[in-house]
């Protein structure tokens, strides 16, 4: 368990898709710590943003193979990371992620 909420929540993800689900389904997307659990994320979000979380879904984004210029054209790997999609409870205030 990671107790520091700032260590759990790395950054909000701002993409067309995350924007779309935020508007349509009241769901917010964050990059989280690789070892953070759903409970960690729920506690951290509720503490940081003062909201009520209804559900948390997490997923590991696997590293991709990519040709890097800094490696002089040799293939390398992008970093892997963990994503959490948080659904807020009905009636909960929204999160200002902008």
């Amino acid at each position, binding site marked *: 368990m990671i107790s520091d909420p700032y260590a759990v929540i790395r950054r909000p993800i*701002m993409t067309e898709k995350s924007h779309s689900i935020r508007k349509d389904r009241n769901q917010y997307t964050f990059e989280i710590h690789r070892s953070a659990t759903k409970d960690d994320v729920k506690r951290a979000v509720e503490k940081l943003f003062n909201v009520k979380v209804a559900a948390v879904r997490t997923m590991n984004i696997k590293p991709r193979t990519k040709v890097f210029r800094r490696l002089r054209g040799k293939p390398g790997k992008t970093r892997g990371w963990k994503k959490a999609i948080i659904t807020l409870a009905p009636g909960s205030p929204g999160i200002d992620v902008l």
Partner: protein
Amino acid sequence: MSSEGKAATLDLKWQVEDIGPCRKKLIVEVAASEVNRALEKSCSALAGDVQIPGFRKGRAPRDLVEKRFAAEISKEVAEALVPEAIDQSCKAASLDIISAPRFDRDKIRLRKGEPLKFEVEVEVKPEFILGQYKGVEINQLEAVVFDEELDAVVREALIEAGHVSIEEPMEATPDCEIFGTTRVEAEGFDESYLTRATIEDGLTLGPPVAVPVDMLIGKKTGDTVEYEMIAGEECQASALRGKKVKISFRINKIIRQKSKELTDEIAREFGEPDAAAFREKLRSKFMEVIAEKSKTRAEEELLEKITAATPFEVPRGAVERYKEFVLSALDRVIRRLRTDERYDNEDTDETISKLAEADSERIVRQTFILEKIAKVENITVEDDEVDAELAAMARARGVRASDLFRQMSENGDLEAVKWKILRRKTIDFLMRNANITVVPRKRNGDVADTGPSATAPVAGGGPAAETGASGPVPPGAVEVGGTTGSDGAPAPTGEVAGDRIDSTSGHAGSSGAKTEQASEDGAPVTGGDNRDDTGTPPATGEGDARRAREDAPEGT
């Protein structure tokens, strides 16, 4: 005094306060609704173009764009809204501004949902009551040509065309040209100069100190004239000022140029049947010059009297801008003088700056007065008058009138042409309504510089120099006055300023300094023969005039 009101198109409030002669402070408040609308519009436009990581181009949400680019959007909206608000408030407050509004951009804060408040300072046209401008008493010199003047013109024409005989007299006389070497010695200074002098014109080439050429009369080739003097403040070489200077002038050659006698045969070379006809032709040309110059003199007297009768505070900004324009138009001269080591750079700058300063206020004042008289008397410029002027200018430049029209429309020079016509018509109106007393002209010329060179013809044709009519100036902005003479009067237009010393300017010195004049129509005149038959300045000068006009703010 202050006034306030509510403008029509943009929802704004304004307040005007007097902060000095011809200067107003405009306090403007644009309503919050207008600010929001402008922000909304700007944000929508930006959202369609902007690319933010994670979003395809133009797909970023409005709120994100608004937050990310808040500073840029505010700046853009302020830049669009502020000039519009100033424009509307000035129109609503009936302010006739003649300068770019001055305000501190950094102080303008634009926030969503809040009104936009700012203050600007503007210079406005002066408000004044016209003094007497009808029935003004002026003198105009009678246009007559004296025989001795005509003789001089004929001689000049013959010399110009090469009908001369050169003698080398034993002794220098007042009609001789003397060549030699001048050595100037002073503490820490020892220079020699090739020197050319005539008794009439003084030194036309030589050292930067005055040489009393009268001392040369009676001297022979090979003689050396020596004298000592203390160089005064007027000395053009600063290294010599206040020092005891020893000058040695050695005469190397004395020549006398004499024109041949006018014969029927020579007259035929000029395209005239006989000598009498040639003289008559020169007489009529010289008469035209004298008539034009005496008319110009009378007009200047009239304008000076009207100006004296109409006191008002001239906007300093307009004077300064006008001065800047004159100086930029004279930049070529200044640059050339800077390369001449005989002249003190600082003095040259100072002299030109003083001349520009003296002229600027006079011309700006006259411009406002003429503009007001034209308005009061309902003097207007018709399109066909502009067309005729453009056609004349096109003829003189050898271009098509339509091309010239297009070029001038693009450059914004048409206003200058209109002003030139309006100015001319207004002055003509004033002359028609003046009480003109024709006074006899004395011998030895009392019309400024109607010397023979002004009418010297070239073989087979017209005059080498023609007088230029006073030219155009858009009101309050880009009128260039003639170079002011030592008596404060403008130098005559069309005067050739070259090696020959300008007796009216008083600043060319005795060492053959070349001067150029700023003509009344907004460009330096480098020589009378540069002017075309419409009195418009040479092309280079017009370019300067145009550039200055472009720099000048609107509404002037």
